[in-house]
């Protein structure tokens, strides 16, 4: 059954365009999406999922399950990095462990989007408030990562800089991508409340265009991820194993939390994907600033070079299988 889900996932345009990008790199084609076009699509996707999430949040309201789920999501982004840190410390120093741990506690918006498309393809319902969970999981993981450095690092850090908490909280909360996502969520919410005709006029942009833009962006992500993979291979088998095993483990925990929250299968999958995915946007930027001792090629290559493609291709259908198994449809 899982293989049929995997096939069903692989033969959709977004995943096929992702493959097209990776194969371009493998065959050494000179296909390249020049900057800042990827940023255009990245901003567009954040704006659109934020806006749509806001609309749906308004129609679903803030019931008890909504609040519980968001709370649980934030909790996951605080706890998962600590587990990851424990695993990573088996082989890596404090700085690299903390930086990678923060990435895996945080989320990947593109993985989330791909999971939404996967659900739509299966005609499974999911709710807009999951976008709020997405938006709120980026920052806490960053802060946990820094706390881990503070607690576990040798008292005399080589570059003896005291951690400037103001700057870090600023980076964690007001990072451009996080800010755009949360802002669009609020705007979607306000628009749905006060200006229903505005909702309709946004639809061609934030709604109809979304799937195609997602494909274009995944084409680029395929190129970028495939270029990162060799660097991960250089980093050795421990990190390679980590980049596949950790998402599976986090997903496993996610399934049980989703079950405890009594989420329906659609929301449950999204919750699991949030747990299983790793950030390559806000977290690396924050880590570079605050833990320059960590190798950026480590935390970017693991999250982007392997975990991201793994989730896009195999992870999402696997997690769906897990959800189907552990959360029986009512």
């Amino acid at each position: 059954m899982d293989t049929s889900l995997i096939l069903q996932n692989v033969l959709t345009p977004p995943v096929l365009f992702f493959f097209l990008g990776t194969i371009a790199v493998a065959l050494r084609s000179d296909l390249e999406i020049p900057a800042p076009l990827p940023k255009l699509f990245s901003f567009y996707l954040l704006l659109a999922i934020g806006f749509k999430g806001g609309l749906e949040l308004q129609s679903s309201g803030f019931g008890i399950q909504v609040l519980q789920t968001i709370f649980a999501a934030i909790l996951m982004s605080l706890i998962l990095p600590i587990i990851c840190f424990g695993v990573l410390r088996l082989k890596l120093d404090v700085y690299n462990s903390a930086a990678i741990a923060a990435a895996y506690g945080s989320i990947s918006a593109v993985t989330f989007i791909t999971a939404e498309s996967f659900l739509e393809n299966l005609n499974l319902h999911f709710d807009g408030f999951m976008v709020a969970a997405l938006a709120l999981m980026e920052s806490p993981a960053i802060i946990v990562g820094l706390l881990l450095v503070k607690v576990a690092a040798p008292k005399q850090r080589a570059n003896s800089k005291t951690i400037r908490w103001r700057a870090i909280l600023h980076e964690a909360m007001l990072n451009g991508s996080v800010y755009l996502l949360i802002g669009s969520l609020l705007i979607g919410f306000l628009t749905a409340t006060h200006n229903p005709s505005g909702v309709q006029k946004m639809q061609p942009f934030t709604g109809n265009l979304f799937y195609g833009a997602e494909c274009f962006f995944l084409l680029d992500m395929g190129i970028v991820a495939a270029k990162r993979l060799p660097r991960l291979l250089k980093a050795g088998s421990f990190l390679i194993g980590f980049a596949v095993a950790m998402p599976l483990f986090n997903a496993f925990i996610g399934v049980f939390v989703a079950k405890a929250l009594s989420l329906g299968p659609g929301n449950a999958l999204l919750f699991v994907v949030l747990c299983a995915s790793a950030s390559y946007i806000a977290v690396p930027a924050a880590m570079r600033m605050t833990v320059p001792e960590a190798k950026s090629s480590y935390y970017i290559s693991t999250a982007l070079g392997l975990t991201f493609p793994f989730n896009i291709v195999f992870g999402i259908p696997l997690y769906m299988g897990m959800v189907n198994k552990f959360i029986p449809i009512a």
Partner: protein
Amino acid sequence: MKRLDLIFSDRELDAMLKALDEGGAPGYTVIKHVTGKGPQGAVSEDMEFTDLGANAHVIVFCDEKVLDKLIINIKPIINYYGGVGYISEANPI
């Protein structure tokens, strides 16, 4: 007069420009979206969509005296975050 070339991650651009301003730079020129390779590895254009960005190349033409002050201001940034700085001769037209 002197020419100072600085190349570093554009995440540090604001801090660097502030350091130059405070050091009394009479002006500067900034080229963004620059890539390259250095002791800390390669920086490529394809990561610009993340908030990590690429490199910035900053050029300052100034007197030797100002230069000394500038270097005092920017050295800590480069030591902490990486990047390179080079000095050469240049004269105004």
